[in-house]
């Protein structure tokens, strides 16, 4: 049963009382909320996600509530609770849905350790995936949103999960987070895309979330082989340009964008070595989305890998 099987009022009631057990990628989240905008956001952007049976094992137990303090009469706020504990400072009430998205990312990025986790968007085509690690402001999510509206499958727009045991990418398709001008750019680029309501004045500026393509959600259990590591950079007026990046440099930069590289110790080093080895690594500068789509369409996976030396002594 998917979220869409519930009517908006059923969903709202369920979220308020027992909560829902929502399946995103390989994780089950038990989610409760009394905040109407969160229920609406879930109804809109999570319609195609499976609901797991009630009262099963959940990876994360979260709720979004309104703190019961004096402020609620003047400046209503939203609070994100992880298993009853406050994780973030409260935010203005109208930021509750973006807060849910950030909170879900937090749940995964601070707990999951069977995967090397990179702060990166991940897309796939023809059985090969590209990860796009990048600091905020590089246009990673915009590019990701454009690609998934032009035939690429969305694995994630924030979290690349590389399974340590076999180096495969594990999908975690969730709504794509867009900021400021990117929202209108993608709306124009794909008029059929579904967006959550825009929320202004967040720490990231104005944000809105784009619904993940139904096909990507349906294929959330299909792990993929990595082929490319691409560091995107939006630069106004620039001609699209894909530049080969030395693998050792790519290694260090991907590690810099990782949540748990250092935590994984030697395992992380080995996983990163395999990841870089399996990939062609590029810096990518672009200004026009169509150019980017064309260049991504022409990407070829490397013919063979294991061209490095590796040793683990003693």
């Amino acid at each position, binding site marked *: 049963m998917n979220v869409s099987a519930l009517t908006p009022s059923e969903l709202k009631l369920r979220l308020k009382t027992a909560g829902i057990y929502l399946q995103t990628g390989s994780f089950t989240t038990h989610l409760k909320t009394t905040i109407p905008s969160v229920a609406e956001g879930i109804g809109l952007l999570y319609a195609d996600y499976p609901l797991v049976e009630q009262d099963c094992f959940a990876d994360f137990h979260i709720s979004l509530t309104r703190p019961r303090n004096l402020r609620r009469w003047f400046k209503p706020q939203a609070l994100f609770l992880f298993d009853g504990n406050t994780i973030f400072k409260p935010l203005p009430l109208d930021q509750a849905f973006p807060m849910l998205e950030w909170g879900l990312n937090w749940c995964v990025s601070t707990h999951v350790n069977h995967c090397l986790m990179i702060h990166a968007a991940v897309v796939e085509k023809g059985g090969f995936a590209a990860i796009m690690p990048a600091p905020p402001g590089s246009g990673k999510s915009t590019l990701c949103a454009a690609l998934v509206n032009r035939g690429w499958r969305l694995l994630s727009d924030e979290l690349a999960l590389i399974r340590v045991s076999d180096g495969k990418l594990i999908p975690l398709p969730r709504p794509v987070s867009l900021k400021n001008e990117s929202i209108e750019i993608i709306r124009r680029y794909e008029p059929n895309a579904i967006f959550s309501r825009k929320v202004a004045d967040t720490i990231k500026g104005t944000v809105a979330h784009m619904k993940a393509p139904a096909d990507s959600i349906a294929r959330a259990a299909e792990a993929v082989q990595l082929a490319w590591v691409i560091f995107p950079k939006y630069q106004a007026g620039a001609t699209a340009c894909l530049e080969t990046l*030395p693998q050792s*440099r790519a290694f*260090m930069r991907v590690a810099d964008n990782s949540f748990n590289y250092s935590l994984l*110790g030697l395992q992380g*080093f*080995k996983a990163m*070595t395999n990841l870089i080895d399996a990939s062609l690594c590029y810096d990518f500068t672009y200004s026009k989305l169509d150019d980017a789509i064309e260049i991504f369409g022409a990407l070829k996976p490397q013919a063979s890998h294991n061209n490095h030396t*590796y*040793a683990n*002594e003693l």
Partner: protein
Amino acid sequence: MEWRLTSSQAISYCSWDDEWVFYNNLSGDTHLLGSVAAQVLLELRQSSLNALLLTEALARRLQAENVTDKEFSFQIDHLLNELNTLGLIEFS
């Protein structure tokens, strides 16, 4: 007094072209090293050496012409101190 790998340092590394990425299992840090630094570690992995013998061995590895060249020994000294600070090698 000789330079050697820090005790229980189990060097892991990978390299592409002429750049090396070393994992320091003691500190948990990862270092991007150039070929000279990498050769120092590989040399010391075989045996501990005093600075002079190490400089000679490196000169051979790097095919440097004149091992008495002051600049070369000065650079090696500097490098050894850096690797020491990173906890990869020690002097004892």
